[in-house]
């Protein structure tokens, strides 16, 4: 039997009763977009529906001509026959879960989410629903995030150590969301200038304009080299690792801030000196907690390698299935 609210299609997750797609991968008429990361917010859709908190970031990503409708968190709106509202997912600034109500049934598509506090965005809001669609990026119990304060302690100790050794501390992190969250977490602890790779400048500025407090930042000078950068903290996107851009640092300690850094083999394979476990996705306990909080009778698991999560949820008595089981 077809689900009137959820239908995975080649273009993306489709809501038949509402006539819209969530985070479509190919151009469609109506797109509800959960957040501004490139693999969710793509150009070319006729009309976008997004959370107001993320509007500026969406505009930056989608360009001036895009038709974007913005809604407050919790504000209901109607698409087709479905009442839709967007609710904080805690993933990054403006990130949303999509709540859909139709014929007395409520479906929530979580999008990407996390349960840890994040000074750059509103916290995840648990929503009671009949069907809950969860992500599963880190769906194994080995993924259990350490407290952020502990990670920041380690990060500052690393920076101090680099300063002592007179080498640059180059921290790789995703340019949108992760970089600004790290800066905001550093804000109460340091007032030293942090240097930014060019890819981070505009996005960080947008976060400042949204009222996120961060330490002073400055663009990495085009000709800055060697000794001038000794002991300095530099934030850069992962794509800069191993690129000619790195040649300006004759001596640098490199680190990557990511949930994947929880596993030593990941760090060693990528060749970073240090790994800091910082993720904007839910860890194993965060996934289980959110499934419980939803009270949903049916759980769909999407994204990543979710087989273990599905099996575990089923053994715990949940009616869980991979989203792909809905078929196209």
């Amino acid at each position, binding site marked *: 039997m077809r689900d009137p609210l959820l239908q995975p299609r080649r273009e993306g997750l489709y809501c038949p009763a509402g006539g819209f797609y969530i985070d479509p991968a190919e151009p469609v008429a109506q797109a509800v977009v959960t957040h501004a990361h490139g693999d969710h917010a793509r150009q070319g859709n006729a009309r976008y529906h997004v959370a107001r908190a993320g509007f500026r970031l969406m505009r930056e990503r989608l360009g001036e001509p895009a038709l974007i409708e913005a809604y407050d968190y919790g504000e209901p709106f109607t698409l087709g026959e479905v009442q839709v509202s967007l609710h904080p997912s805690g993933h990054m600034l403006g990130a949303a879960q999509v709540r859909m109500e139709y014929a007395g049934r409520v479906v929530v598509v979580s999008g990407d989410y996390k349960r840890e506090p994040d000074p750059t965005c509103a916290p995840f809001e648990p929503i009671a629903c009949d069907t809950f669609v969860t992500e599963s990026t880190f769906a*194994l*119990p*080995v*993924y*259990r995030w350490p407290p952020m304060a502990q990670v920041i302690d380690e990060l500052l100790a690393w920076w101090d150590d680099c300063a002592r050794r007179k080498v640059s501390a180059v921290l790789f992190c995703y340019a949108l969301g992760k970089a600004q969250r790290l800066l905001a977490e550093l804000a109460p602890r340091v007032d030293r200038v942090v240097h930014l790779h060019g890819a981070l400048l505009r996005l960080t500025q947008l976060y400042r304009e949204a009222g996120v407090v961060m330490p002073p930042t400055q663009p990495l000078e085009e000709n800055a080299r060697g000794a001038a950068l000794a002991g300095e903290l530099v934030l850069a996107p992962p794509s800069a690792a191993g690129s000619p851009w790195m040649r300006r640092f004759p001596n640098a300690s490199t680190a990557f801030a990511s949930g994947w850094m*929880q*596993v*030593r*083999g*990941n760090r*060693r*394979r990528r*060749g970073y*000196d*240090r790994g800091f476990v910082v993720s904007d996705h839910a860890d194993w306990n965060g996934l289980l907690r959110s499934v419980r909080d939803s009270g949903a009778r049916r759980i769909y698991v999407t994204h990543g*390698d979710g087989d*273990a999560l599905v*099996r*575990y949820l089923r*053994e715990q008595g949940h009616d869980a299935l991979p989203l792909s089981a809905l078929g196209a």
Partner: protein
Amino acid sequence: MRRFVQLYAALDRTGSTTAKRDAIAAFLHDAPPADAAWAVYVLGGGKLRRLASVTELRQATGTATGYPDWLIDESYAHVGDLAEAIALLLPPGEPSDDTPLHVWMEQRLPSLSRLDPSARVAQLQAWWATLPSEEVFLLNKLITGALRVGVSQRLVVQALALWSQLPTDLIAHRLSGDWKPDATSLAALAQPAGDDAHREHRPYPFFLASPLESPVESLGERAEWLAEWKWDGIRAQLMRRGEEARLWSRGEERLDGRFPEIEQAAGALPSGCVLDGEILAWDAQATAPRPFTALQKRIGKLKPGAKLLAETPVRFMAYDLLERDGADLRESPLHLRRARLAELLQAMPPTLLLSPAADTDDWAALARLREQSRERRTEGLMLKRLDSPYRVGRKRGDWWKWKVDPYTLDAVLIYAQSGHGRRAGLFTDYTFGVWDRGHLVPVAKAYSGLDDAEIARLDAWIRAHTIERFGPVRSVEPEHVFELAYEAIQRSGRHKSGVAVRFPRILRWRSDLSIRDADRLEDLRRMAEG
């Protein structure tokens, strides 16, 4: 233990060997000697006897976490390291314990082997509960084997040399053999040169050859080089000191009792001599050794019985003389050492052989002779500079191995499993099959030979084309053909295919071939006969 955890973290966080050496030297300087001695031992690759089985570790993890076995297995397969997977799965402990490393190594861990399995599982859990995650990880590493933190025995020697201000070769020699990790032995390592009271028990550090990568003519005059066959056996030193004969493997393990016929023959050697050579399986009347696979039957046997001794006799093929009349000959040139070796072996029983020189007038003739390597059951040739001393470790320039090209076969990828360590979470352990009456039968497993980009591409393909899962192993659609190199092929009753392929590795991804082009098992069987 906490200090050692810090050392481990420092080693793990840098790729620089200098930084690693300095970190180890600093630890040797600061740590209590008994702990420093154990650090030298485990960083150099030393292990305790197996203390707990993988099953027991999984069981203890299951009880401590409440997770089902399959989830622990999935986690292990994902992390690629059991010690680490357990540390990540356990609930955070109440760190309360800072027992010194030597107490762990000498008392606590060995006590595990005196417990019955259920008590062992309980003891593991009790320890885990008192340690922070990074110490749980290291403790598990010590229980399960190698530390694998990018530290070689050679780097440990360099750190000891830095710490003691003594030459590396002297440290390497003092550390060889069955060095005991305790405070006294550590102090003995740092004693001034010429003060070696216990030398008689130790083998000399082995001199290792490097692969010849440039044309053989680049070595200069043929007359300056000794050429020998490269034997495919177990490298060993045969020591005769006092009334005793001892056999040491290249891994510096004592082989006492495993090869009684060699020990017995060594009784004919005069006291105070040390031979470097190769243990080979060799039938009484044969003119060439048997393949390495025959020797493997002997390697595992601590005390071989009369039947095995009769079926698979061994010989010692000597190629160097390191000591004579109690004097260290390593500094004298090879041609003198070899002359004295030949003289010594003249009156010896046939179990002790002299590795013959491959005499040719010029390099071209030697290259032709090398083509006979396989029929002589050797791996190629060794080239040794006649006026060179016997050096320590892998030093380039005086000893070269000039191996023959490997055999190859084309096989289809049929199973994949995720790797370990640096390759954790990626499908990098592959099983390959060849055709047997319309079916692909597994014949070889291989782990290396692809570059990172190819590994990533194949990993993504495997995930998308999995047919079935068997725990961590996936069967995949037969589509990709790989050219595998291997050293030898043997008939084998233990393998489903009926053949055992020795040392297979991936040469290249043959995207130009379809699976129909892969090799046939009947051809491999024929090769194994020949």
